[in-house]
């Protein structure tokens, strides 16, 4: 990583009642870098990206994008900061009241004030880049399979050429082949745009494929980070247990007493 980080997270804390989800988390993401955050379910991965994007306000700590603090912004300023972001949601989160192409063009029309015709053209071109035919544009999101919806979600996230793209569990719920297709598309799109990417996943195949760097989150902190290739020799027992998917090890699944 060279120069000032694109995203700098410092001492991020977030708790829901007594449940501490993020406990003073630090993370840097360099310009044009692809960082994958791995960790078990309920370890705060989603909360982390929501705090980075400003969808959730942290209890304390700071998030800087391009050196500019983004926590505690007013709604108007946040909307401006949002324009740098694109996000692929776990369940794709397509607007089911709009046709596929309108979904892809949404950010262009609403956020960037582009005209309908021009936005449709860009939308269809973006859909082509993720392997969707123009005819798909006239369908409704509910008519698509899970993998197709992911592609549309990806197209929507990259249509306005964001500087930072967030991928929330991009391969969850897809078959391994479709998962790999999506991984390839992510790598290709991020490279082509030169964007900075933050992904969260617990799918190690996906992490290996899309990450320059991997960071592991456990109990609200980053406990290990390093180059994606070095993760197999991390020497960290927590990481080893996670990437090999063993039930025995230092990470104990906490089963909450009712």
């Amino acid at each position, binding site marked *: 990583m060279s120069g000032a980080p694109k995203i700098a997270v410092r001492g991020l804390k977030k708790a829901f009642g007594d449940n501490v989800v993020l406990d003073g988390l630090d993370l840097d993401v360099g310009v044009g870098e692809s960082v994958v955050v791995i960790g078990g379910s309920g370890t705060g991965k989603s909360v982390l990206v929501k705090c980075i*994007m400003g969808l959730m306000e942290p209890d304390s700590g700071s998030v800087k994008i391009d050196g500019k603090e983004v926590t505690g912004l007013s709604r108007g300023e946040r909307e401006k900061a949002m324009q740098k972001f694109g996000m692929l*949601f776990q369940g794709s989160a*397509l607007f089911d009241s709009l046709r596929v192409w309108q979904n892809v063009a949404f950010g262009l029309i609403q956020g960037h004030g582009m005209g309908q015709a021009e936005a449709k053209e860009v939308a269809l071109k973006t859909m082509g880049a993720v392997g969707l035919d123009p005819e798909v544009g006239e369908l409704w999101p509910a008519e698509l399979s899970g993998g197709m919806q992911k592609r549309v979600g990806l197209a929507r996230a990259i249509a306005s050429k964001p500087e930072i793209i967030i991928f929330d569990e991009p391969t969850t719920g897809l078959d391994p082949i479709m998962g790999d297709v999506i991984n390839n598309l992510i790598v290709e799109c991020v490279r082509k745009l030169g964007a900075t990417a933050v992904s969260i996943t617990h799918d190690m195949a996906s992490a290996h494929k899309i990450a320059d760097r991997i960071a592991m989150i456990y109990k609200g902190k980053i406990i290990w980070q390093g180059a994606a290739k070095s993760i197999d020799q991390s020497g960290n027992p927590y990481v080893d247990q996670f990437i090999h998917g063993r039930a025995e090890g230092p990470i104990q699944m906490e089963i909450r007493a009712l």
Partner: protein
Amino acid sequence: MNFLGRIGRVFLGFCTGTGRLTLFTFNGVSHCFRPPIYFKLIGKQFLDIGYYSLPVVGLTAIFIGMVLALQLHTGFSRLTGGESAIAQVVVLGMTRELGPVIAALMVAGRIGASIAAEIGTMRVTDQIDALSTLSTNPYKYLVAPRLLAAVVALPCLVLIADIIGVFGGFLMASYKFGFNPSAYLQNTADFLQTDDVVSGLIKSAVFGFIIALMGCYHGYNSRGGAQGVGAATTHAVVSASVMILMFDYILSALLFSS
């Protein structure tokens, strides 16, 4: 002590709820007047709330008008000369009270529920977060158009309900009780004052606001999947109905206090 604690918790819950609703209302209303204003969405909502509610509201209004005349005819027959007051009581009851309240309650069931279910589903499937990531304010895109459309649509509906209701009374009086039709209409027209209709329309605008606000508020704050959306829908309809009757009293007291 436990008992006191419970009371305190309920009270605190009430306070946070009220505060949240107030903030939500302020946000929603302020976005009604700040550009960009989505005229297309307002039109779509107006069609949904106003036009498609016509059959339901019309049917209820005609039966209410008819049953009102029927009850008055049998009830007033105990008074000497009481029957001649039927035309006046029907028109007064419909325009001042029954038209606005019945129409509002029907629309609360039809529209309040659908708003809460739609926005609630958007919430639990991350579509509202997706709006934010595409630089679109959910208050402006989802809440403001519904508030504006409902405030305009309800008075239109009520005006039509008034006419249909009075017509229902007229049908009963002239065909069932053998009143002179032209005399009945003359009585109605002579007795009716502008204030009667206008007060009903003012009330109905407030009712429209309540219906849309409750639908949006409960939908926006729903969580926890299908069950959460179901609960949001119930809350939206019940709270809107109760508030309609409450505000009906308050507004009547205010409007006719002199």
